[in-house]
């Protein structure tokens, strides 16, 4: 058992898989000698050398494509895209190439790769702090994984690298410095599994990434201040989505809250609420409520803090809804 930061957990997972499988390679801007802009790949270049850990030019299309071509023909590339917002400059690969090749070729082409994105708020402003998990969830054929803790980073990133499908792996920038206990030895988790982090009987709160610790803190306060006992579920994976765990929780609590960092419209919360409203309508004891960032671009620095769902906002929304 060691205490690791979320950022070190990234490097640990990649190292674990690179040691195991010589076809795993890592590429991206400043990912090698510099150890990544977020220092999440420090040491890998030294350990695995310039053949397996490669710096790229500012050519997101070229290296997304290169990863895909390599994946199609036998390698298992892990790509560092740096800020998640940069998905927009190579979106063609996310939307049109990675997820469609297997289908269009009736299974002939396989695209086993992992694209790592530094997602979410961190005070850099409108073009560097977007949460793009819903961009990815919209696209059939992708898998979308969003860890909230160092141990999940290790296990889910390892599972993503071993997965035979294209996986978008969204690391949260504001979690990189967060520490957590991680067991020694090989860790491989399972994609498509949500985790109940706090059992509760009055309401189900779903969250992802940075919103997970906030949902947990809110649940503690709701319990202490108002006696409201919330079940907090870390969704962890948007594709595949663990609807079973979600629907089962809801059937016990009767109330659903989603805590999303992506801007309000068409987020993963909307998807989950719609599934629940359709399939578990009669389990609902009240309106399912989404707590989201408003549908506006993000300002930088301190202003950002006011827009992202906070512990206060979660507490107030849940309390107001349940005591309405």
């Amino acid at each position: 058992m060691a205490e690791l930061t979320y950022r070190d957990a990234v490097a640990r997972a990649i190292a674990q898989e690179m040691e195991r499988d010589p076809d795993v390679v890592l590429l991206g801007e400043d990912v090698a000698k510099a150890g990544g802009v977020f220092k999440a790949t420090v040491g890998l270049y030294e350990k695995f050398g310039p053949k397996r850990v490669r710096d790229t030019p500012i050519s997101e299309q070229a290296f997304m494509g290169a990863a895909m071509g390599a994946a199609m023909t036998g390698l298992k590339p892990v790509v560092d895209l740096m800020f998640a917002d940069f998905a927009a400059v190579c979106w063609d690969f996310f939307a049109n190439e990675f997820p469609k090749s297997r289908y269009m070729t009736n299974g002939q082409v396989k695209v086993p790769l992992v694209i790592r994105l530094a997602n979410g708020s961190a005070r850099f402003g409108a073009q560097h702090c977007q949460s793009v998990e819903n961009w990815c969830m919209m696209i059939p054929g992708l898998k979308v994984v969003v860890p909230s803790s160092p141990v999940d980073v290790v296990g889910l990133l390892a599972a993503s690298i071993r997965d035979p499908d294209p996986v978008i792996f969204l690391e949260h920038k504001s979690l990189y410095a967060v520490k957590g206990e991680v067991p020694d030895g090989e860790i491989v988790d399972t994609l498509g599994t949500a985790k109940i982090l706090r059992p509760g009987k009055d309401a189900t709160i779903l969250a992802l990434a940075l919103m997970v610790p906030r949902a947990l803190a809110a649940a503690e306060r709701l319990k202490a201040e108002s006696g409201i006992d919330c079940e907090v579920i870390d969704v962890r994976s948007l594709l595949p989505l663990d609807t079973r765990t979600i629907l089962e929780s809801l059937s016990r609590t009767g109330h659903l809250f989603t805590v999303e960092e992506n801007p309000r419209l068409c987020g993963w919360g909307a998807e989950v609420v719609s599934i629940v409203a359709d399939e578990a309508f009669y389990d609902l004891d009240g309106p399912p409520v989404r707590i989201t960032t408003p549908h506006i671009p993000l300002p930088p620095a301190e202003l950002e803090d006011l827009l992202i769902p906070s512990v206060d906002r979660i507490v107030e929304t849940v309390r107001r809804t349940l005591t309405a």
Partner: protein
Amino acid sequence: MSKKTAAIDIAEATRLEMYRSQYRLREAEQRAFDLFLQNLVKGTSHLSLGQEAIAAGFATAMQPGDLTFCTYRGHAHTLARGVSVEKVLGELMSRDNGLMRGKGGSMHLTSVEHGVMGSYAIIGAHLCIACGAAWRAQYQGKSDVTTCFFGDGTTNIGAFHEALNFAVIWKLPVVFVCENNLYMEYTPIKDVTAVAQPAADRASAYGLERILIDGNDADVVYQTAQKAYARARAGEGPSLIECLTYRHSGHSRADPAKYRPKGELEKWKESDPVKTYRARLLAQGIKASVLDEIERVVKAEVDAAEVACKASPLPPDEIMFTDVYADGGCAWRN
């Protein structure tokens, strides 16, 4: 532009193979057009009638295991690697005997077993993807080379630039082949390009040699391809080859090609690659009967393909739900 075909020394068997290949591409695509007129091709399609020398010349120079990446205009390149006419026409006709059982359509012909790694319908991406296939060869110490075909219009999209720079700095065994047929869809390439030769005049921007060839001469194409492959296999990195050619048909099935200046098509038909190559072989002393026999065998393949496709059922409905994910299905939830 090198025009010294007379000096090219190519074995007779190879020349016959290139004739067979060009003739086969021509026949297969003409048949595809007939089937379209019979309303048996429901999706779109893009023919490369007139551009056969490029597909035939490169494919003949390739070795087994070499990889091909093409665009939506990919019938010729797919067939040239040995994929059967039946499988290609079947795919165009959305039949169960199609190369992808109807799930990709004309624009996405793929036959991994033949090294045809896909046909890509959004301009640009596949130049980058080809880099990756070549990188894998380099990484694994394999000797195969990747060829990526694309059009003149494609040289103006950003992905072209990124891929070329990337291939050079990583010294990848990839050959980029620009088929300059003078048009991007309906717009003449010269109206939208800052240089006269959209690929060749940009080679220096990547530290590459300027290579501009007659794309209607299979011998020139073959020889140029051989050089590029040798260079790639020797670890000397990528090449960028611009082949001048012309498409005889419209851009796609929807296009009657009215934008052509009068006489342009006719002029280019004078250098029709199939006809001129036949004439050259005859002039070089090959017997007409040998060529006739090649043509007969090809026609028989195409006829049989048509019959088989017409007899093939549509794919079963369930096929639509397969192969989204590696588990064979499309489930995104439990």
